């Protein structure tokens, strides 16, 4: 059974409809990429899954319907969102940011251990643990956002353009760690990206969004070989 199943999801900002009924599904501990141009509705899709925008349609997570629930309750079920803009608590320290990630968990006693585990993935954050998060570089803040999501021990992680604004080398490093996280923590990733080449390399499945509709979906390899995708999104 799919971990996440979306049927006929619609969303609008005021009068402007952004999603026109999209369907997709995501397997347990898989990596799925959501591709598309600017304004296709990728960010809105992620926001819709977390009830951060008004929606219609059905969202099933781990066998339960979650559309219509409050953001906090969806998070508590194990959906961690790494938002657009990274969502850093700028005036708190790095470590306080990470502890907040574990806020919704019931098992508080393992938090210290999880901090160590997260610092294992991102040693740079350990060096910066007492530093105000607002003073971290863009790449470090992205690592912090991923780490904060990881502290929830999520079953599903929604990543909104983690590569945005980062140097190519940093992106490569980050994606390698994302692959490791997916393997070791058995957490599913739903990755929204403009960098289609990188995303298709990491993901096993992918969907292509165009102006609020899913126009293509399937194995990442298939999409990579698709002529239309190649010309429009991969550029060769």
């Amino acid at each position: 059974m799919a971990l996440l199943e979306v049927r006929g999801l619609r969303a609008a900002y005021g009068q402007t409809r952004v999603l026109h009924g999209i369907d997709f599904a995501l397997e347990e501990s898989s990596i799925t990429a959501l591709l598309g141009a600017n304004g296709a509705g990728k960010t809105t899709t992620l926001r819709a899954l977390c009830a951060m925008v008004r929606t219609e349609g059905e969202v099933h997570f781990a066998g339960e319907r979650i559309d219509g629930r409050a953001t906090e309750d969806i998070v508590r079920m194990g959906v961690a969102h790494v938002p657009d803009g990274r969502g850093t608590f700028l005036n708190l320290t790095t470590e306080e940011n990470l502890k907040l990630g574990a806020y919704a968990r019931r098992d508080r006693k393992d938090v210290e251990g999880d901090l160590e585990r997260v610092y294992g993935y991102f040693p740079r954050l350990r060096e910066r643990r007492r530093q105000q998060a607002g003073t971290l570089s863009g790449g470090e803040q992205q690592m912090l956002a991923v780490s904060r999501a990881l502290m929830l021990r999520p079953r599903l992680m929604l990543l909104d353009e983690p590569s945005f604004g980062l140097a190519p080398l940093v992106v490569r490093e980050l994606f390698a760690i994302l692959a490791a996280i997916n393997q070791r923590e058995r957490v599913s990733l739903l990755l929204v990206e403009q960098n289609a080449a990188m995303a298709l390399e990491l993901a096993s499945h992918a969907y292509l969004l165009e102006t609020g509709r899913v126009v293509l979906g399937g194995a990442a390899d298939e999409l990579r070989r698709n002529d239309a995708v190649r010309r429009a999104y991969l550029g060769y």
Partner: protein
Amino acid sequence: MDAFLHQVLAGLATGGIYASLALALVMIYQATHLVNFAQGEMAMFATYLAWSLLNAGVPYWPAFLLTIGIAFVGGILIERVVVRPVESSPVLAIVVVFIALLVILNSVAGWIYTYTLKSFPSPFPQQAAFKYMSPHEIGAIGITLVVLAALYVFFRFTPLGLAMRAAAQNPESARLVGIRVGWMLALGWGLAAAIGAVAGMMVAPIVYLDPNMMGGVLLYAFAAALVGGIDSPGGAVLGGFLVGVLENVLGAFVIGNELKLSVALVLIVGVLLVRPSGFFGRVHVTRV
């Protein structure tokens, strides 16, 4: 010299009370970017409740703690019932609600307890042990410091305190880590009301209990919060002590007691003109 020292020390005592109320203002300001004009009347009402408890024969310290508890719950209720529904309204609408709250609390207190002055007991001994300060003044400073220390520990070292800071700073991200932001706001109101209740019970033995007793105090607290920087808790506390001392010293030696309140107004206007972010507040720069 003796008289001067006495005025400074007495100023520290009232300054502590201003600091508490300023802290309550800052707490709500940080979370909502609004100044709660009813903060003083909430404190006054809580003090009347304490008076009722004392009159019913409850000993001072149990009555003190019970009042803080009632004020805390009352603050939460006010947020849930009165403030919540207008949360996303324009600022002016919310300000009108705060002023309505002020007038309602003031009138209801006058209606129940009448407008005649009542004396309110101090929990501290009567006879002076120290030349420059009365026991109540020393006690009030001590209690203020205890409240401040407790708040510091709460916000700094507990998960709930951290969650409240997170919710005030970045509500959207707070929601995404599972924090119930609405409840954090309500909790902030509860804490502010509880702090206000302490300030009320400490100031009442000095100014006597009547429905308008907090009017001046709120003005001083507002000046204190502005001097320190309206978004800085530490600044508000220092501002409180500063305003208390200035008010007392200027009142005694320079402008006379009748004009004391204008010290607060001059400070408010002066700070807004010269340094709008206060001495410890953050300057907000926005890229356009």
